[in-house]
Structures are given as structure tokens and as C-alpha cells.
């Protein structure tokens, strides 16, 4: 498969089923560096599965995913893990912060997993917490902060390794609209400033409005809306 010129991540004819349930049925996808692409669709349409396949978390049953000229399905589990550690960042609906670590330790965690010394990792984490306007929460545990604050910490964690790709699965799903919009602003601004591509799974139009382009997934099939901001 030849990826579109300049694309960072391209997927072709992805198929994935969980038992009798077909989650992806020939989905296509591509994204360029610095681009924000929203993946939209109703609940159960397969959009989260598409994100998991693109991020190398779940292998598709068939189809191809090329990242930076490398075929993901040809990589071992350890290679895909290393890719996620070093080049991908993740934001989930409920933050999924480690409850026993402080916010700064949570943000520093991906760096530490890549072997960065603790102090250096925590310095970088504090910088990102500052950029996301939650640096005063560094010493607190996730249980002690609000949902919106926690989600900003999660965004900082996703960006701290300076990833080339950020995968965000319903990042504002658990937030009120005000908090949601602020998180989206911070996420997209920060990603654009580092030229990171963002795959944004959402079912909310106002969240999708922060993207450069939309892809709609329905019954496991994707349709590129080619909408320019």
C-alpha cells in the first residue's frame, strides 16, 4: 500500500470483529503531521475501535496501518509498546490517571517509562502542567482534583513526551461544556504548537469543531468529510 503523500498515519480496509459483533468493516483513515482529525459517529459505531487499531493497541483482523512508513501489523508487541511510549500520547474519557500517584508524578510517568531520570521527568511535567494552567495541582492526587482539572492533567501527560501523534478518546465526555471547551482549546493549541497530529474520537459536534477534518464512522465503515476549518 502506498500512503498519501506527506501523511503520518494511514489505514486501509481495516476489519475488526469482537465475536459476532463487527466493529470495523473496511474503515479507511489518514492524517498528516500537525493535523487534528475528529472521528465521529454514534455509540457503538466502531470509532473507539478505530482509534485503538490506529494506536497499535488492538491489532485489526485484516487491513493495513502505516505509521511513518512502517507497517504496524508487522511490529512485535514490544515494538508497538515502544512506539506508544515514545511517539504516541493518549487522553481517555475519564483521564485514567493513576490514583495513587500525584498529578506531577502522573504526568512524568510516560517519561519515566522511557527511562528519563525522575527529576528531569518531573521538571518537564511541571512545565506542561503550567502550560495547561494546573501547575498548582502538582502535589495533589487525582482523587483530590475536579474532573476538568484531572482531564487537563491527562492532556499534559499525553503531551509530555512530545509525541508525534495524540489519540484522544472522548476527552471531554465526562466534563461540562465550559470545562470541555477549555480542555479542547488547550489540547489542540498545545498539539499544534508541537506539530503533533491529533486523532479525536467524539460524538459531540462542538468538540469536533476544534478539528481540521472530520471522519464519520457508521457500522464500521468510515467516510472522510474533507472539511477544512
Amino acid at each position, binding site marked *: 500500500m502506498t500512503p498519501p503523500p506527506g501523511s503520518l498515519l494511514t489505514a486501509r480496509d481495516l476489519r475488526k470483529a469482537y465475536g459476532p459483533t463487527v466493529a470495523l468493516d473496511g474503515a479507511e483513515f489518514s492524517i498528516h503531521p500537525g493535523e487534528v482529525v475528529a472521528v465521529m459517529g454514534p*455509540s457503538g459505531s466502531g470509532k473507539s475501535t478505530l482509534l485503538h487499531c490506529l494506536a497499535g493497541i488492538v491489532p485489526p483482523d485484516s487491513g493495513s496501518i502505516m505509521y511513518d512508513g512502517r507497517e504496524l501489523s508487522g511490529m512485535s508487541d514490544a515494538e508497538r509498546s515502544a512506539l506508544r511510549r515514545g511517539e504516541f500520547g493518549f487522553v481517555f474519557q475519564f483521564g485514567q490517571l493513576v490514583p495513587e500517584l500525584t498529578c506531577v508524578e502522573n504526568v512524568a510517568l510516560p517519561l519515566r517509562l522511557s527511562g528519563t531520570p525522575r527529576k528531569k521527568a518531573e521538571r518537564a511535567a511541571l512545565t506542561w502542567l503550567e502550560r495547561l494552567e494546573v501547575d498548582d495541582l502538582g502535589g495533589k492526587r487525582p482523587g483530590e482534583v475536579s474532573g476538568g482539572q484531572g482531564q487537563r492533567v491527562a492532556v499534559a501527560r499525553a503531551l509530555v513526551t512530545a509525541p508525534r501523534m495524540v489519540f484522544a478518546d472522548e476527552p471531554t465526555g465526562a466534563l461540562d461544556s465550559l470545562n470541555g471547551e477549555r480542555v479542547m482549546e488547550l489540547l489542540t493549541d498545545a498539539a499544534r504548537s508541537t506539530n503533533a497530529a491529533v486523532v479525536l474520537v467524539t460524538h459531540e459536534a462542538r468538540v469536533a469543531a476544534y478539528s481540521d477534518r472530520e471522519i464519520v464512522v457508521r457500522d464500521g465503515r468510515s467516510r472522510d468529510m474533507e472539511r477544512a476549518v
Partner: protein
Amino acid sequence: MSTREWGRDLGLGFRFAFTGGREGWIRVLLTAVGVGLGVALLLLTTAIPNALSVRHARDNDRADHTYGPVRPKAANTLVISDTDTEFHGHDVRGRLVEPEGPEAPVPPGLTAYPATGDMVVSPALRELLGSSEGRLLRARLPYRITGTITEDGLVGSRELAYYAGAKNLAPKIDGSRTARIDMYGLTGTPPQSHADPILILLVLVVFVVLLMPVAVFIATAVRFGGERRDRRLAALRLVGSDSRMTRRIAAGEALAGSLVGLVFGTAFFLLGRQFAGSMEVVGISVFPDYLNPSPTLAALVALAVPAAAVLVTLFALRGVVIEPLGVVRTAKPARRRLWWRLLLPLGGIALLAPMIGQGGSDGQFNQYLVTGGVLLLLVGVTALLPWAVEAVVARLHRGSVAWQLAVRRLQLSSGSAARMVNGIAVAVAGAVALQMLFAGVQGDYTKRTGQDVTRAQMQINLSDGTPFRTAADQFRTTKGVRKAVSLGSASLGEKDWKNGPGDTTLLVSGTCASLRETARLPSCRDGDAFVVTGGEDDAAVTKLARPGRVLHLDADHGAGKGPDVRWTVPAGLKPAHAITSPNGTRSSAVLLTPAAVPDRVDRLLDGTVYVMFDKGVPDVSEYTRNTAAKVDPFADVMVWSTTEESRNFTSIRTGLYVGALCVLALIGASLLVTQLEQLRERRKLLSSLMAFGTRRRTLSLSVFWQTAIPVALGLLLASVVGLTLGAVLLKMVGSPLGVDWRSVLSMTGAGAAVVLVVTALSLPPLLRLMRPEGLRTE
């Protein structure tokens, strides 16, 4: 707060337990299985006293006292001979019987006496004799099997026992192994033996030590699935339930689990009881119907377990904030206080202190103070451990990611980590204390036999009239036997034994080679006689062994009712010097070679054969026993050892080992369930950690540290409390303080091993939970 409100809330929780769908049922089932295992163990414990008393009663009913005066032959008498033996380490109760009249009483378990050459056997012996494993025993018991001893003639389902018909037993009556009797069973009340206070102390402590972890286990079991339940209860807060009501509802759910657990426990106990009938533990077996729990104790278990379930749940939820939106434990829990936790072990020591030094022969221990004191000390472990874990993990420095994840988790919820290892810590503390006590008093219950196992490994005491000189030859040709020495002996008195023998000395007869086992002989040939000095009573032998002096032979083992057999000390006695004989004695005696012994004396000598064999030959002791049975079916065979432990002491110690194993296995099971539950709770988090590339090794290591840190602290605390309790117990029995480090290490090692096994078993589920499927919500 009214009883009605309590009843309503508990009832509501009870209903929720069964209407919570699949998840609710699984939770009830987990709790019920956990509580059930604990209840079964408690019921078994309450049934043990009854089982032992039934065994005791059965044993009394069949007692056939062969000691005492010889009674005349009558229509209601029989001659019975004790031919107990041992096979592959198992005792075999054997009796040769010869009824002398039609009214001779029949022992319990038999309807009639077997004819001469026939035998009736216990079911277990029948099974053994019919198997290839029992081939050698079959050769020793060459009787035809004609019947089975029924249950009322046996003390246990696996007891090996037989009654064999014999004839011409009367001449063998010796007032010890063979006797004439006219009844079975004990007459009157058996003498009340003064129970040894140290043994009572040991039994009490063993019971507390073994039951305490079971209680901890039950307390853990009623909290299975607790975290998920707490979230479910948040929904109740949303519809107006206050926090107290919510806790009572949670307690109602636990109550439901514990009640189902009682039913499960009864079922496990009944199943286990049937199974118990087919097994033997430390040489003791029971029939299933022996295992009847005492009704009072069973009622206590039935009340205490549900009550404990309610109390434990209320206690556990006191620090949990269940909010209407499901936020549980939002803030760091309050710091644990040390002072009241210290009061428990200190209170325990205070209860035990008044009994220090009470272990003498007349001493008595107050059972309530002992039980209460030990209980408080062990409960102290469970109270101190959460504080210790919290205090230590708060000071732990940062390290690798795995270490940091573990330490941070422990800092956030040190209580649940401490709870996980509480059971192990209590079991180890108790076991360390007991091992110390056992090691301290072992000397009092172990005596040196003096037997020299390098010169002989078996001693065979032949019955009266058995030609001992030729017996040795038969042993020498037995497979595996290297050497056999036979000696005959009798006591010599200065006067007729009817009126008291006056001074006495020993007469020993054997070949020159045999006599050299007891004295250093200058030279020896058949016909020689020696006077041996340098032994235990030189004065008597020097006085009596004078040529020409007439001495009187003990013809009936000191009873003084036999004929007066005289022997004149011959001229030409050679002097010899005593050496320690194989049985550990060093006797001053008169030694006679065979030609120097007159026939009438020779017949009256008690024959003993000392056998040395090659232990490398399989079943060599069984071959030797078979030869002994062939030479003399009434022979008394003894296996030698350098030390001999009191049977009661050994039984209690073995009981502790078996109990400790059961308890550790039980706790291991509870640990595993708790561990798996915690992992399931974190499924989504584990998946997300895995999503951003966390290595499996990192998370596995973090789980290991998360277990290893509290376990290490728990075992350290358990050792400290165990050593303290052990020291107090040793002081109580008046034994010098000493630490048996080997047992401390072995017990803590066993505890650590259980935790390692549990961690290893929880790794595969951990790896499964780390799969990305955990991120899926649909």
C-alpha cells in the same frame, strides 16, 4: 436508633445481595465459599473434643488388663495375649485369645471368638493384608481371616487391629503381656490423672493460634467485592439513604453472604466428615459419626459468624465516604493512632504476667487468662500492622517506576494491604511463639534412652520358655541383618524370693561373643564363669558371688510365687570389668557361658536378642519383626532410638504442624481472592497504562512490591510479637529463655512462600487484565 430501623436496613441489604444480578451473586458466592471454609474448620474444631472422647470411651470399653494377679481358670475366663506390632510406621493392635469356658466375655466389635488359627480383623487391616503393600505383614499374621471387627470394637476407621484364636496360652501368663481375664473394659472410674499444666498450656495456645487466623480469614471473606459494592451503594445515597443507613444496608449484604456461608460451611463440614473417615492424620483416624460438634459450640459459631460479618462491615465502612455520586474515599484517610493499638498486646502481656513461673509440677494456668492473653497479643498484630505499614511506607523513598507505583498505592491504601497479610502475620506470630515454647520445653519431654544405635537397632524380648540361644541364629539369616546377639538373664537373690530376696544381683548367660557385649573378658571359652565389677552395683555382686554360696533365682519376675530355684556359685569365677551394654546399662553381674548354666536355671532365663541391621535394605525392620513373630509370637519387639519423646508432646506438636499447614493454605486462598479482586477493580487503569506503552514487567514488579512490602513488614512484626509471646510463655513454664532461630526462619519462610505463590498465581490474570480489551466500554 431503633431495632426496627436496623432490621429494615439489614433486611434491605440482605435482599440486595440476591437481587444484584450476576455480579451480586458472584459476590455472595465468594463470601459464602470463604466463610464456609472458615465455618467448616471451626465446626471441625468444635467436633474434635467429642471425637477424642468417643475414641477414649471405645478404648476403655475394650481394655483387657493383662497386669495384676493371676486369677483361676473358670467358665467365664479367657487367656489373652498382647501381640501388638508395627508395620511401616503404623501401629497394629493384636490379641491372641483363648476362651476357657462358654461364658468367656466377647470383646466389643466381635460376636464370637475366632477358632484356633483364625482371625477377625479391622476393615483397614483386611484391606492392607489384601494389598501388595501388606505382603510382609501377611507373613507375620499367618491366620485365616474369618470375620471383621465392627465399629464398636475400633477406635478409628483406619485402625489396624485383629483378634486371633490360639491354644495353650495359659503357660505364657506372665502378668504383663499375657493374662487370664474375665471381663473387658475398665472397672469403676478411671483414675484421674493430674493434667500436665504445660501440656494444657500448649493445647490452649495451639487452639488460639490456629483459630485466630481463621477468624481473620472470615473477616476478610465478608469483605470480598467490597469496593464494587460501595460504588453500588452510592446509588442508594442518591435516592435519600443517609450514610448510616447505607452502612447498615452494606452490613445486611455481608450478613446474607455469611448466612449462605454458614450453610456452605455445614455442607463442607458434612462432606469433609465423610472424607475424614477414610483418612488418617498423625496415626489417628476417626469414624465420621465421631465428628459431632458440641451443640453449644456449634450454636456459638452459628451466632458469632453472622454477628462478626455485620460488625466487620460496619467497622470497615467507618472510613469510607459513600457520596450520592459514587465518590468513595475522596481524601487521604486520617493518620492511624498508635496508642490504642499498643494497648492490645500490652493488655495481653498483662493478662499473662500473673502466670509467670506457674508451670511447675503443682502449677495451674488459668485457662481464661491464657486464652485471653494470647488472643489479645495476636489481635495486637492485626491492629499494629496497618499502623506499621502506614508509618513505614510513608518514609519510603522513590525508586523505579514499579517501586513508585507500589509505594504510592500502599501510601494511599495501606489498610487494605495490611488486611491482606493480617492472617499470615497472625499465623506466623502464633507459630513462632509456639515453636519457641516447644523448643524450650522439649528437653522436659524428651529423654535419652541410653540405647546405642551403633551397636543394635532392635531389641527383641522373648517370652518365657523360648530358647534364646538358638533364636539369634534365625535372626542372623534374616535379610538385611548384620549381627544378632542373644543373652539370657535373671535376678539372683540371697534368700528365697517368697520372703523377699535380700540383696540381689544379675545373672547373665550367653556365648563368649555375646558376653563380650556387656563386659571386657580376659579370656573366654565355654564353661567359664565371670564376676563382673565396675558396673552399677558392685557391692551386691561382690557380696553374693562367692564360690560355694547358694543363691536363689527369681523364677516369676519378682512376684515371689514361683518355685525356689537354687544355684550354687561355682569355683573359679574369673574377674571381668563391666562395659556399657547395647541397651545403655552398665551392670555388675555374674556372667555364665552356656556350659556353666545348669538346665533348670537355663529354662528360667529371660531371653533378649539384640539385632543390628543394614538400614539400606528396604523393609529390613519388617523382615526382622517377621522373624521375631516366627521365633516367638509373644515376643516384644522394640526399635531403638537415642531419644524418646513423650507421646502427648509429640501429638500436640504434630497437631500444630498439620493445623498450621491447613491455616496457611486457607489464608493463601483468601489472599489470592483478594488480590484478584483488586486487580479486577483496576482493570481499566491497567489497560490504559498498557496503552501508553507500560512494560508488563514494570506492572508485574509493581504488583510484587505491593505485596512484598506489607508481607515483609507483617512477618517482621509477627516475629517480634511471636518472640515476645514465646518469651512470656517460656517464663510462664519456668524454662530458660532461648530463641530457636531455625524455627523462626522456617515459619516466616513458610509465610513468605505462601505470599510468593499467591503473587505468582495472580500474575497470569494480571497479564490478561493488561490487554487492551479493558479499554472497551461497549
